[in-house]
């Protein structure tokens, strides 16, 4: 222990002695750590926003959706007798904490001036307190969505269709038997846009959706299943268990297909079956059309990380070579008075370890403070970026594991980069080293 303290003291003094070099290299390491933390904070922030928004607006952690086909060529996103399906799901997965059910539809919404295709969510607003937490209303009252023939739209849709609260719209769709139907709705609330999901989603009371599609009271579009956050990492296993379990309960279950339900209509219509088939999906499947942005962001972060690591490695090795060259006579003297080769290598290694540790801690503190500042400032982002961030402002999620991970990673890389030069220094012969001038 005493020896370690002495070694640390020597390393510290050496760093102080070469102040300018230490400052430059330490600063570079701190910057790399800050950048790493901010990049990871951004992708974690996007992922967290995506999970919280998507799992409130369009999907559960897992979903039991499905298709009902009256004829082989005509499918509707319908789950019949859904209370029985919920009971079966709870028998199969006791981990389920709560469930909600949503109607699903795809229709044309027509205002006095324009029209657009929209995905309709049928919702019982009184049963979903979390829903209002995920939305920020621009105008109107969310409680009014409990009234029949009401609709909640998003600001971008209101702009396109030239609508305000109190205006009327018509939704036109074909029932599951292919008969044209319409429903006249009153806009009761306009929510602020939240990225891609708000481009085409609108919400109407479940009963109104059933009326539009001529569905029975025990029919819905999908059952959203929620679990404890600790179960999030086990979702693929839970989904597989649910599929097998539902089959054992006598339901026909579709093969796993990691796509959103609306992307499956073509393939489902091609298949030669009629009646009900259930489809188990995860939240990632249902927002797979957007997760590419997250993957792209993570990919860019990874490439940047590789570049930064390469810069760190080259920088550290270079600096160590310079240090060794400068201190060759010192190494020779230390070896001549009895210092072992291992101790010489350890001395240099410890020096870079200390440098790495202090640099990364400094960078981590800087990164955390910057992230906190950005979050507090509610930095607004332009609309195209909002589509992918699913938020109108920048959110950086910097959590302790991320910070410690960054410190550990950069320090480790720094130490590993110093390993080879340190070993080379230890291999110097005392006589040669002492005669070195330079």
């Amino acid at each position: 222990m005493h020896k370690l303290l002495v070694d640390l003291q020597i390393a510290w003094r050496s760093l102080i002695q070469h102040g300018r070099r230490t400052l430059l290299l330490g600063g570079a390491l701190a910057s790399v750590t800050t950048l790493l933390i901010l990049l990871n904070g951004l992708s974690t922030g996007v992922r967290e926003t995506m999970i919280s928004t998507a799992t409130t607006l369009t999907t559960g952690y897992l979903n039991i959706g499905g298709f009902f086909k009256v004829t082989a060529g005509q499918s509707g996103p319908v789950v019949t007798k859904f209370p029985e399906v919920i009971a079966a799901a709870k028998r199969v997965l006791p981990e389920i904490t709560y469930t909600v059910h949503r109607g699903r539809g795809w229709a044309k919404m027509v205002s006095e001036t324009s029209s657009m295709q929209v995905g309709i969510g049928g919702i019982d607003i009184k049963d979903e307190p979390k829903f209002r937490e995920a939305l920020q209303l621009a105008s109107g009252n969310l409680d009014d969505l409990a009234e029949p023939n009401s609709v909640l739209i998003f600001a971008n849709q209101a702009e396109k269709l030239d609508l305000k609260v109190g205006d009327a719209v018509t939704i036109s769709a074909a029932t599951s038997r292919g008969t044209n139907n319409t429903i006249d709705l009153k806009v009761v609330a306009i929510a602020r846009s939240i990225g891609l999901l708000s481009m085409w989603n609108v919400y109407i009371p479940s009963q109104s959706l059933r009326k539009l599609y001529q569905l029975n009271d025990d029919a819905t579009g999908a059952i959203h299943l929620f679990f404890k956050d600790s179960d999030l990492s086990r979702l693929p296993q839970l989904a597989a268990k649910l599929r097998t379990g539902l089959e054992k309960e006598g339901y026909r279950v579709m093969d796993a297909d990691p796509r959103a339900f609306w992307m499956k209509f073509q393939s489902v219509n091609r298949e030669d079956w009629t009646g009900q088939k259930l489809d188990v999906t995860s939240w990632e499947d249902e927002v797979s059309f957007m997760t590419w942005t997250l993957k792209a962001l993570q990919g860019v972060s990874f490439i940047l990380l590789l570049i930064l690591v390469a810069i760190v490695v080259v920088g550290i090795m270079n600096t160590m070579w310079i240090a060794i060259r400068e201190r060759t006579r010192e190494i020779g003297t230390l070896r001549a008075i009895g210092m072992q080769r291992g101790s010489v290598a350890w001395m240099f290694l410890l020096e870079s370890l200390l440098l790495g540790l202090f640099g990364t801690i400094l960078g981590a503190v800087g990164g955390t403070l910057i992230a906190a500042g950005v979050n507090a400032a509610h930095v607004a982002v332009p609309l195209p970026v909002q589509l992918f961030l699913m938020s109108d402002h920048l959110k950086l999620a910097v959590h302790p594991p991320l910070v410690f991970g960054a410190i550990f990673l950069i320090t480790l890389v720094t130490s590993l980069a110093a390993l080879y030069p340190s070993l080379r220094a230890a291999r110097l012969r005392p006589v040669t080293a002492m005669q070195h001038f330079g």
Partner: protein
Amino acid sequence: MTTWFGQTLGRRAILKWGTLAGALALWGGSTAVLPQVAHAAATTAELVAILKQVDDRQRNGGDWMSNVYIEQKEKDKVDVVYDARVFRRSQDQKFMILFDKPKSSQGQGYLRLDQNLWFYDPSVGRWERRTERERIGGTNSRRSDFDESRLAEEYDPTDDGEEKLGAYTAQKMTLNGKKGLDLAFPMIKLWVDKDTKNVLKRQEFALSGKLLRTSYYPKWKKAYSESKKADVWYPQEIRFYDEVEKANSTLILIRAVDMHPLAANLFTKAWLESKSR
């Protein structure tokens, strides 16, 4: 307006003026407030007989090929225009549409086989099963608009009296879809020319009772059918007006009708695929 169309333009004049004038005359006559022509209420049997006549005049009981021009106008969008060929075979209710123009749609087609409507897109080389009530080429026209009329089989009529449509006296009736049949429009209001039994106007309603589409048939033409051994009537022009999105309309022109027997292997996926190779 009513007087002008009703008194100045006779039926012959409307046809002579061409299709646009015809459509306008029908539109003018139908949208203005018109007194119902007094007449004795038609019985259901009489109305069914009229529907059967309407269907029969258009049925040729054999093969059919025609060129169709489809033009879709939508607000704030570029007009969509298609040239296509329609093939029909009465015996087994086979039906096919093959798109010739524009180039981007060339080779695409719909094929009705065993009560299923299939869509083929040569750019992906794949068949997709579509609903029978599919909007053809994304326009406001349906497969049934190009197929043989089956009103008497699909709907039960009730009398709405007589009405003047421009120079025509029309039997107006409400048709309600028969139970057990899946129909795109569960209710239709129909105006049939009392003299010729040609359809002049149709209004199609949603299940909710909302008016969805108004169609005008300003020009009818006949052609002799060998298989029927009689004349077959067909609308040379149909105009659809979207009543939900008021600015949208679709025009269909039916040309070059040929009722000679078609090749036996025509109504097959292979034949349609071969047209784009």
